[in-house]
């Protein structure tokens, strides 16, 4: 179950991972987007980590809300509102008394889909979120499942976001947002929250 402490730990791990993989994320975006996904995400997650370190939080909702606002006001581009909406949705759900991790991730995925209108198979971060959600429900979330979900975006043709302008030329490349979302969930496992 999410607690104030492990949620902060989770998001800090995510920020570190994004910082470490900044260039790789931008490289993925160079191939089928505009090459800024690493810069965007690291700008946002660095601000998030700083904000989380500055305050004492009473509830998981507060942690997630603060994280959401940092991402929203620092990332920009497409991924900013998407991660922001995910975390706002998760924060709302975390406020419910009888919630659980699956419901919180469900709320995050709903937030992304409501904001971005992408369907599974459109070659976006949604593909990772929905696969992860499914695995969570079945109690089968592992690093391997996440890796596979990320890799599975490669053969798809993009139908949302900048990559969609490439049409068939987007085929054969991993979606950068899927990769960064993969990091988020791997950090959930690495943080020992499952």
């Amino acid at each position, binding site marked *: 179950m999410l607690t104030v402490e492990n949620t902060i730990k989770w998001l800090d791990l995510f920020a570190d991972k994004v910082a470490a993989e900044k260039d790789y994320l931008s490289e993925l975006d160079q191939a089928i987007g505009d*090459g800024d996904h690493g810069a965007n995400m690291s700008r946002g997650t660095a601000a998030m980590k700083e904000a989380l370190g500055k305050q004492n939080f009473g509830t998981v909702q507060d942690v997630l809300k603060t994280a959401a606002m940092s991402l929203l006001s620092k990332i*920009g*581009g497409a991924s900013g*509102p998407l991660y922001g909406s995910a975390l706002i949705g998760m924060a709302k759900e975390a406020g419910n008394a009888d919630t659980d991790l699956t419901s919180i991730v469900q709320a995050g995925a709903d937030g992304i889909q409501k*904001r*971005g209108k992408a369907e599974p198979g459109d070659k976006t971060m949604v593909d990772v979120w929905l696969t992860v959600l499914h695995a969570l429900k079945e109690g089968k979330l592992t690093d391997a499942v996440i890796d596979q979900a990320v890799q599975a975006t490669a053969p798809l043709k993009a139908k949302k*976001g*900048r990559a*969609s*302008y490439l049409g068939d030329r987007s085929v054969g490349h991993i979606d950068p947002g899927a990769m960064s979302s993969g990091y988020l969930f791997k950090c959930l496992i690495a943080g020992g929250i499952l």
Partner: protein
Amino acid sequence: MKKIINKPEDVVDEMLDGLVFTSASLIRRLPGTNVILRKQKSEGKVAVVSGGGSGHEPTHAGFVGSGMLAAAVCGPVFTSPTPDQIAAAIKEANQGAGVLLVIKNYSGDIMNFEMAEDLASMDHIEVKHIVVDDDIAVEDSTYTAGKRGVAGTILVHKMMGAAAEAGLSLNELKDLGDQVISSIKTIGVALSAGTVPESGKPGFVLKDNEMEYGVGIHGEPGYRREPIKSSKEIAKELTDKLRDAFKWNASDRYAILVNGLGATPLMEQYIFANDVSEILTKDKIELPFRKVGSYMTSLDMAGISLTLFHLKQDQWLDWLNVPVETTAW
């Protein structure tokens, strides 16, 4: 990369200060933000607010001023600004009659602007938006993000600014905006890519003798790459595409915008405009409004775009022509 800049991460901040220095009587910067506001207020009028990534100068901030934009929100180079900045612009720009957002059709822009709209509604500010998607280079289909917003956006800014100043309500403006946008189409050609300062490398590479039709203003791919053609041949290709899209008739009235993409000098823009005018004259199209210059650029991209705007009402032409006080119109 050879550019007259300081640190790549500071380009937007320093550019905005330079712009405000240049047009200090017209505009100001909202402290702590990348929002440019006009100094002269129009009380009781709808405020038209635009924005998006930077690198398209003079768009967007160059069009802030009386009769045109009330505010522009300037994101990082080629990256949409964030909802908090847009919300701050909405709040400052609002003159009591609501705010119309002009958004270019990119996933990032739409999502950030829509979230800002949500934030503003919590402050009880009435906000509506229109989405410019004038680039006919890529096919429009429900399976893609749709057409992109490019140079035609400056005509939308002008129309909305003039109509807002004329006193239209927010609902009327939104309706007008939708009609105007569906009457504007653009298509371009690139000779070389622009270089984002933070990456230091050109967005794509064309050979010494190559050009590409239909490239977007962030270097998005176009529809055909081929050896460089003469201005006349390029004019033919682009007007053919526009003719197909508009299906115009003799004596239809259009506004024309020939737009340089950043590194292409005016000499080439005028030569191209001359070739386009010859074709449109043969088609017996009337062109009562004409504009040539580098208005919607893509950093130092070399190339040109051609925009036509079907003037379905006489009023529209008047609104294009009414004088404004801005840095760049």
